[in-house]
């Protein structure tokens, strides 16, 4: 009989790269967050130990769709959480690994708009085939939990550590007035700004706000 700690060890050993976090929130439960790219490897790892897939629950969280793969492994519930960005909510199917996934994936596809790559039998499960394309009954607007009005402030604070950074026009006008072009704020110094970015990452706020560090802007559709 595998204990919770042994399940954690199994995941850590077999999917070290894409395992983002793993905890045992209570007795007979293990919860892990994994990268979408390793879903098949993770499922194979559990199925290889005799686990059975109970269900896949899809939750539209605004910016992402959370897929919660629930497995039963020797009486313990193992939940694999995968976050799919709604910019491209796609993931490999596991229906060929375990038949239980076939309907569950179809359900997540038609209710929330997830595309399961290489699904053996794509199509509607409970909704009418006549439903207009792109209509997902459990889909929510593509936006974070922040109110729209706060979005620009959040973006500015995360990007430059200021709600009102200096414009190029103001830089010129400041110099004309005998002031340095910029004050000694974080946005005037690359290493200081890097420190601010790291601090914000540590608070986890940028993730909650849906900040895309590569594109340097908030994810989601703006008003």
């Amino acid at each position, binding site marked *: 009989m595998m204990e919770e700690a042994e399940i954690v060890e199994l995941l850590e050993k077999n999917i070290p790269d894409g395992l983002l976090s793993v905890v045992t929130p209570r007795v007979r439960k293990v919860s892990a967050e994994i990268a979408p790219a390793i879903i098949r490897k993770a499922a194979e790892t559990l199925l290889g130990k005799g686990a059975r897939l109970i269900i896949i629950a899809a939750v539209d969280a605004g910016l992402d769709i959370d897929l919660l793969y629930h497995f039963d492994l020797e009486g313990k519930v193992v939940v694999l959480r995968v976050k799919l960005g709604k910019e491209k909510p796609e993931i490999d199917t596991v229906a060929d690994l375990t038949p239980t996934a076939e309907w569950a994936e179809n359900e997540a596809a038609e209710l929330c708009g997830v595309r399961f790559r290489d699904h053996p039998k794509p199509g509607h499960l409970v909704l009418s085939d006549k439903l207009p394309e792109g209509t997902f009954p459990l889909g929510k607007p593509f936006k974070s939990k922040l109110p729209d009005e706060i979005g620009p402030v959040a973006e500015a604070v995360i990007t430059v550590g200021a709600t009102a950074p200096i414009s190029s026009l103001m830089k010129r006008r400041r110099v004309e*007035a005998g002031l340095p072009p910029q004050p000694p704020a974080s946005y005037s110094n690359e290493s200081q700004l890097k420190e601010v970015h790291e601090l914000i990452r540590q608070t986890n706020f940028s993730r909650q706000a849906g900040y895309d560090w590569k594109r340097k802007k908030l994810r989601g559709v703006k008003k």
Partner: protein
Amino acid sequence: MKKYALFLGCMIPQRLPSAELATHKVFNSLGLEIAEMTGYTCCPDPILARLMDRKVALSMSARNLSIAEGQGLDVVVLCNGCYETLWEANEFMKRGETSREINELLAKVGRKYNGTINVRHVVEVLHEDVGIEAIKNQVKKPLGLKLAVHHGCHLFREENGRDIWRKPKQFEELVSATGAEVVRSDVDQLCCGFPTSHVDEEFSLKHNLLPKLERYQHIGVDGIVVVCPACNVQFESGQLALRRYSAKFSIPCLHLVELLALAFGAPSKELSLEFHRSPVSQLVARIG
């Protein structure tokens, strides 16, 4: 020579650099020294940013305070919003649990805040550390102006049990020290509307700014004095925005440090008052 770490915040360098210039002139005249706070961030903003996330707001504030603490200096702020945010963060950081939680985050970027410094509003520094008599002694051009004093909501932020009018009264006394007449009215404590302008500009203009401007115009003030750049922006941009609703005003608005600099005899050209969007030149002309 008393020295302070000057927290400029976001709004002053971007929207009101004339207050930055005036601060240097006034502090210099009074024998006060200023140190820059290299790498500071937004305080952050007391309304929107602080509502976003407690941890991110407190850690940014504590990081700012750690910069001043590293210099062994108290922080002086020119903005009511920055004052409230940093003052409250400083209080929170004196509590063991919060201090531990936030310092754990700061440690990840190589910082620590021990809570050994104070956050001071420029009004407190001028009134308490310099004193009204010393201010009066510096006045070269007594201002024969009739001025409305807009205290600003966050200036009333006070330690539990202390008089919430302490700083607002100090502000009024500082304005009076320039030789100007402080005109009181029943709209003094009405918010300028800056915070609500983020979510409903029309409401903030019609329900906050308009009644204030109407009253000030009726009284016939020469100008409005503030100690907060956000209030200043609201009074100035708001007067322009109100034209959309057929309400025309032409009331100058400026920061206390600019008023003091003028009273101390600084030539208006050296203060770059053209950064203002209200007719401050009209007020300067009256001073002569």
